[in-house]
C-alpha cells in the first residue's frame, strides 16, 4: 500500500520540472515541452497500470466499504447526469436529422436517414459527446476533490490508517466512470435515435417509424455493439485515470489545484480524441 503511492510519486513527480524556469531558446523550449509530455505519458501509463493492478489484486479487500463507494460513483457519473443527457439526446437528434434532412433532400435520398443516424450517432458523436459531458461534469470534480485532499494531507492520513489511497479513492472512481460513460452513451443513443425520428416526422419526411428503425437495425452489426461497449468503457477508464492522476498522484499545494484541473480537462479531451481515432482505425480495418 505504502509502496503503491510511493511508486507513483517517483514515477510521476513532474511538478518540480513544471515549476522550473522556462529555457531561454526556442529549441530548448521545444525540448522542455517534449520532455514534459513524455514525463506525463510515463506518469499516466504508470498510474493506469498501478490502478489496474490494485483493482485486480484487491478485488476481495473490504468489499463492504468499496462496493458502496462504487455504487456512489456510478450514481454520480451516471444516474445523476441522466436528465441532462435526455436533453442532449433531444438536441442531438434534432441537430443530426435537421442537417441530414436538408442535405439528403437535395439528392432525394431522405430514406437513408436511419443509416446516417447509425454512422453519426452510434459510432461517433454519441460516445464522444457522452465522454466529454462526463469529463466536464464529473472529471473536473474528481481533480478538485482529490487535489484538495492531496494538498491538505488527507492522502497521508489514509496511508497512516493503513488504507490504500489507490484502492479507496481511485478504484471506485475508475469503475464508476467507466460504467457511467457506457450507460449514459446507451441512453444518449436511444434518446437521439428516438428524437431523430420525431424531428424527421415534424419536417414531413416521408418515412414510417417501421422503415426508419428497420434502416437502423440493418445498418447495425454485432461489431457496432462490441466496439461501442469497448469504446465507452475505454473513454470512462481513461478520463478517470487522467483526472485522478492529476488530482492525486503528484504532490500538490492548494494553489496548484485550479491549474491542475484545467490541465486535466485538456488532457482528458486529448486522450478521448486519441482513443476515438484508434477506434476509427478499428472500424476501417474490420
Amino acid at each position, binding site marked *: 500500500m505504502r*509502496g503503491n503511492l510511493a511508486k507513483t510519486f517517483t514515477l510521476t513527480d513532474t511538478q518540480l520540472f513544471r515549476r522550473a524556469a522556462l529555457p531561454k531558446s526556442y529549441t530548448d523550449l521545444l525540448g522542455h515541452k517534449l520532455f514534459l509530455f513524455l514525463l506525463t505519458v510515463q506518469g499516466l501509463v504508470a498510474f493506469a497500470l498501478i490502478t489496474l493492478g490494485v483493482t485486480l489484486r484487491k478485488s476481495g*479487500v*473490504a468489499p463492504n*466499504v468499496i462496493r458502496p463507494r462504487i455504487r456512489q460513483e456510478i450514481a454520480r457519473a451516471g444516474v445523476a447526469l441522466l436528465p441532462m443527457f435526455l436533453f442532449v439526446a433531444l438536441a442531438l437528434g434534432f441537430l443530426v436529422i435537421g442537417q441530414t434532412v436538408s442535405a439528403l433532400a437535395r439528392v432525394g435520398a431522405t430514406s437513408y436517414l436511419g443509416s446516417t443516424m447509425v454512422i453519426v450517432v452510434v459510432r461517433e458523436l454519441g460516445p464522444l459527446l457522452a465522454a466529454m459531458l462526463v469529463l466536464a461534469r464529473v472529471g473536473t470534480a474528481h481533480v478538485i476533490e482529490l487535489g484538495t485532499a492531496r494538498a*491538505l*494531507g488527507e492522502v*497521508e492520513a489514509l496511508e497512516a*490508517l*493503513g*488504507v490504500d489511497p489507490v484502492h479507496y479513492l481511485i478504484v471506485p472512481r475508475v469503475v464508476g466512470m467507466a460504467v457511467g460513460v457506457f450507460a449514459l452513451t446507451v441512453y444518449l443513443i436511444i434518446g437521439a435515435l428516438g428524437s431523430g425520428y420525431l424531428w424527421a416526422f415534424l419536417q414531413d419526411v416521408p418515412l414510417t417509424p417501421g422503415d426508419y428503425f428497420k434502416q437502423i437495425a440493418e445498418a447495425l452489426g454485432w461489431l457496432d455493439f462490441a466496439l461501442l461497449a469497448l469504446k465507452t468503457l475505454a473513454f470512462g477508464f481513461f478520463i478517470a485515470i487522467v483526472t485522478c492522476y492529476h488530482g492525486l498522484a503528484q504532490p500538490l499545494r492548494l494553489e496548484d489545484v485550479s491549474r491542475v484541473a484545467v490541465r486535466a480537462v485538456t488532457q482528458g479531451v486529448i486522450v478521448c480524441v486519441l482513443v476515438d481515432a484508434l477506434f476509427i482505425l478499428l472500424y476501417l480495418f474490420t
Partner: protein
Amino acid sequence: MSDTQNTVAIEMRGVSVGAMRDISFRVVEAVDWSVATGEFWVIAGQQQSGKSDFLMMTAGLMMPVQGSYKLLGTETQRFGEAELADRLRVGFMFEDGLLFHQLTIRENVALPLQYHRDLSSAAAAQEVQTLLDLMELTPLADITPTNISDNWRQRAALARALILRPEMLLLDNPLGRLGGRHLQWWLRFLNRLGRGHEWCGGKPMTLVATTDDLRPWQGAHRKFALLRDRKFFPLGLWDDVASAGDPVVKELLAVPVDEVVK
C-alpha cells in the same frame, strides 16, 4: 506497570530520519532510543525541528534513511503490505488532525474499522458509537469536520486513531491548538490511556507525543526528549527537564527571555 515494561516497544540504533517531502534531506541523525511498553514519552522541539517527520518514521510510515529500527519487535525496513497488521498496532494522530473533509465525524472514525475488518456501516455502528460517546463527540457525529472547531476536530482525530484499539499511540503536537477546558480533558484522557483504559482492554498504552511547549506536560510519570540541531537528546523525567540548562528547553518551558539569555 512493571510486567508490561519488560518488552521493548521502540528500539532505534543509529537511526537517521529523512523529510517526508524530500527523503534525501535528513532532519534528525544518529538516534539511539528505546521505549519500553507502557511508557509515556514527550518529544519536545521548536517548530521545523523535524518532530513530525521523526514521529511519522517512528510510526512506520517512513523508513529510516540509516540505522536499525524495530517497532514492536518488527524491523521497519521490512514493512510492506504483509506487515500491515503489525503497523496497525500503532495509532497515529497528525498535528492538524487531517480528517477527511468529505466525510462526517462518524464516517471519519468508522473508516479504519470498516476497511480493516470489512464491516458495513451498520455493522460498525455500535463500536463507533461507543467511542464517540467516550470522546463526547456524539452531538457532532453527523457534521463534516470543516463545520466544527479545532478543539473538536483534534478530538475526532484522536477517536479515529483509537478506533482499532492500538497498543501504542503516537500524537503529533496534540495540545498545540487546544483551549483550556479541552487541554485538561486531553491530559486526563492520555493519563487514563497510559494507565490502561477499558477501551483498549485495560492494558497500559505506550504513548509518544511531540510538543513545542513543555509546560502542559509536567508530570512525574512521563519521560522527555529534545530534538535540536538534528540531534535527539533524551532528557529524563520532569525534574531533569526543569533543571536542564539547555536554552532551547528553557524556551520550550517559556522561561522569561532574560533568564534564557543571561
